[in-house]
């Protein structure tokens, strides 16, 4: 390495203390994907962020051997790249990754009907039932299904580049009265080589026995929010009220037909404590004996999510800007001129100035989502949610309910075990990569959380495909390089910029991030995964049986 050229700590270095006295640190690099353990002296030197030159090395100011210095440089933690050059590299990588995923083809959801037989208080589609367009009466017909299949091939003429799994969505797609058209859709799709999955409440599933199973509707996501007494207070049928018993019976029926069932528990503070009880009920019914059965928890978000968007793209005159003025203050350089190097965000302008003169910096802040409480529910932020699950797993190691952990433990474990490149993502989800939702009105959306809302239409397929290219580009053109906050974030290649619908609901526009507590979750889960891997190695060396792979997906 040529250290006659000025080097400095890479701005994309993530520092994670591994123990309470910080004697060891894990470094993770935000664009090389390197993960290393270093001692405290090295960590502190890098965190200080000073420039490194041959003179300083000769003077012994770098606290390790030349070999270690070169290794840290090779891994990306020490770089000669100027801040703007690092940013430019991240941009080029992001665009490369996005092109790759965007170019991989198309996937489709058919929104069978906007109508639903449930009245769940937290449903994000509640708003569209009041939009005056009679959405609830819109259902696919055989003609519109034919048109939808034709439209798929007009959107992506190469059928081999279309995902072989089509998702049926709603409203409630599997209402009993929809059977004829769903039967038509499934059988026509099967003839074309497709299989199906569906997001359903499971209440009228008994009408679909003939369509369930491998090769047909092979997978169902069904939501159950707790044991009967809890579930029935929130997932109520508009006429019948109680829904729990029938859904459980229908799950049993579907499992017997070898249909994969993914039970989702929409989770907030008040139903969290009942997850264990629900788990026991599933156990008693013998569901866990089926390889087709799994359960996961989904965090119910509050409407007022305060994330780093507030910091990175404050809206002038917005109350939240004033409310979080403390945050902005913390972003400034401290009196001693040292920025917080453990932070999420990078101030490239200041960094560039400092790099041209002396030291480097980074900073961040990530506010909690504000909680929202009602009589039956109280939302919580991501960190509280994860802590609750960790405690639950500690209390019951047999608990087979996975939680939304951004897939981080499995992703990191894959790196550790397989020694593969860490999976980076420049985007968050399929909405940015060729997923289309075709609804019964002949409209096309990219995001299924925003269906039925005119402002989020991207096209129509009524007689021919008509895309609003500008609208499509707002989704498919967005990756972390297009978002100011994400471009400045060390974690961006891990999180992909977050849920666009979440950011849009905050009123922050298309090119905003949705952090959802990601940095703190990362700081928590990555070292836990590492320790778990180390433990597995030690157990293997000692001849002990290692845990099953499925447990990897739980918080460690």
């Amino acid at each position, binding site marked *: 390495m040529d250290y006659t050229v000025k080097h400095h700590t890479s701005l994309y270095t993530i520092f994670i203390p591994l123990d309470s006295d910080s*004697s*060891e640190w894990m470094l993770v*690099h935000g*664009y*090389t*994907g*390197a*993960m290393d*353990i*270093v*001692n*405290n*002296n*090295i960590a502190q030197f890098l965190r200080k962020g000073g420039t490194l030159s041959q003179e300083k090395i000769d003077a012994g100011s770098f606290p*390790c*051997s030349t070999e*270690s210095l070169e290794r*840290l440089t090779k*891994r*990306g933690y020490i770089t000669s790249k100027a801040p703007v050059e690092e940013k430019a*590299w991240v941009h080029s990588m992001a665009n*490369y990754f996005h092109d*790759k*995923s965007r170019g*991989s*083809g198309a*996937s489709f959801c058919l929104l069978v009907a906007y109508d639903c037989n449930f009245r769940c208080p*937290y*449903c994000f589609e509640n708003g569209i039932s009041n939009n005056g367009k009679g959405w609830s009466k819109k259902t696919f017909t055989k003609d519109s299904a034919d048109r939808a299949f034709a439209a798929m091939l007009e959107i992506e003429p190469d059928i081999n*580049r*279309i*995902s*072989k*799994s089509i*998702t049926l969505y709603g409203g409630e797609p599997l209402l009993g009265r929809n059977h004829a058209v769903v039967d038509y859709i499934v059988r026509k799709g099967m003839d074309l080589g497709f*299989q199906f*999955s569906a*997001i359903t409440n499971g209440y009228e599933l008994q009408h679909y026995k003939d369509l369930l199973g491998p090769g047909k509707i092979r*997978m169902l*996501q069904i939501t159950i929010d707790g044991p009967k007494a809890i579930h029935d207070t929130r997932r109520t049928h508009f006429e019948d009220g109680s829904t729990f018993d029938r859904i459980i019976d229908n799950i049993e029926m579907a499992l017997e037909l070898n249909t994969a069932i*993914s039970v*989702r528990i*929409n989770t907030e503070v008040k139903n969290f404590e009942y997850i264990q009880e629900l788990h026991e009920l599933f156990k008693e019914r013998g569901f866990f004996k089926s390889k087709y059965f799994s359960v996961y928890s989904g965090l*119910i*978000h509050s409407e007022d999510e305060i994330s780093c968007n507030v910091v990175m793209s404050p809206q002038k005159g917005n109350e939240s800007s004033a409310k979080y003025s403390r945050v902005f203050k913390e972003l400034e350089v401290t009196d001693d001129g040292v920025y917080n190097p453990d932070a999420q965000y990078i101030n490239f302008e200041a960094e560039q100035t400092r790099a041209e003169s002396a030291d480097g910096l980074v900073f961040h802040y990530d506010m909690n989502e504000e909680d929202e409480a009602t009589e039956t529910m109280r939302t919580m932020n991501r960190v509280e949610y994860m802590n609750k699950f960790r405690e639950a797993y500690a209390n019951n190691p047999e608990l087979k309910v996975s939680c*939304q952990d951004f*897939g981080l433990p499995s992703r990191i474990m894959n*790196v*550790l075990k397989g020694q*593969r*490149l860490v*999976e980076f*993502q420049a985007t968050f*989800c*399929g909405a940015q*990569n*060729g*997923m289309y939702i075709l609804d019964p009105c002949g409209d096309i959306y990219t995001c*299924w*959380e925003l269906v039925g809302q005119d402002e989020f239409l991207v096209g129509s397929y009524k007689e021919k495909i008509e895309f609003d290219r500008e609208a499509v580009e707002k989704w498919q053109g967005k990756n972390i390089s297009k978002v100011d906050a994400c471009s400045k974030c060390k974690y961006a290649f891990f999180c992909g910029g977050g849920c666009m619908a979440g950011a849009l609901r905050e009123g922050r526009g298309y090119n905003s991030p949705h952090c959802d507590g990601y940095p703190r979750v990362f700081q928590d889960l990555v070292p836990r995964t590492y320790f778990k891997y180390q433990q597995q190695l030690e157990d293997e060396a000692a001849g002990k049986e290692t845990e099953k792979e499925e447990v990897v997906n739980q918080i460690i």
Partner: protein
Amino acid sequence: MKNKKQPNGDYIEVKSVNENIYDMFSVEELEERLQMSTLNWGCGTDECTSVVIMDSKNR
């Protein structure tokens, strides 16, 4: 001063957890590396669809 790593008395300065990284290579090299790796590109596959389902919110 170096930190103690393990009870056996070993000391470390830098211990790499993973070896395979996105090094500072060109885009062409990136392409080559990625073809050698088994990455899930996140979309258009059955696996991806199931992931998307898992992430659907508040349904």
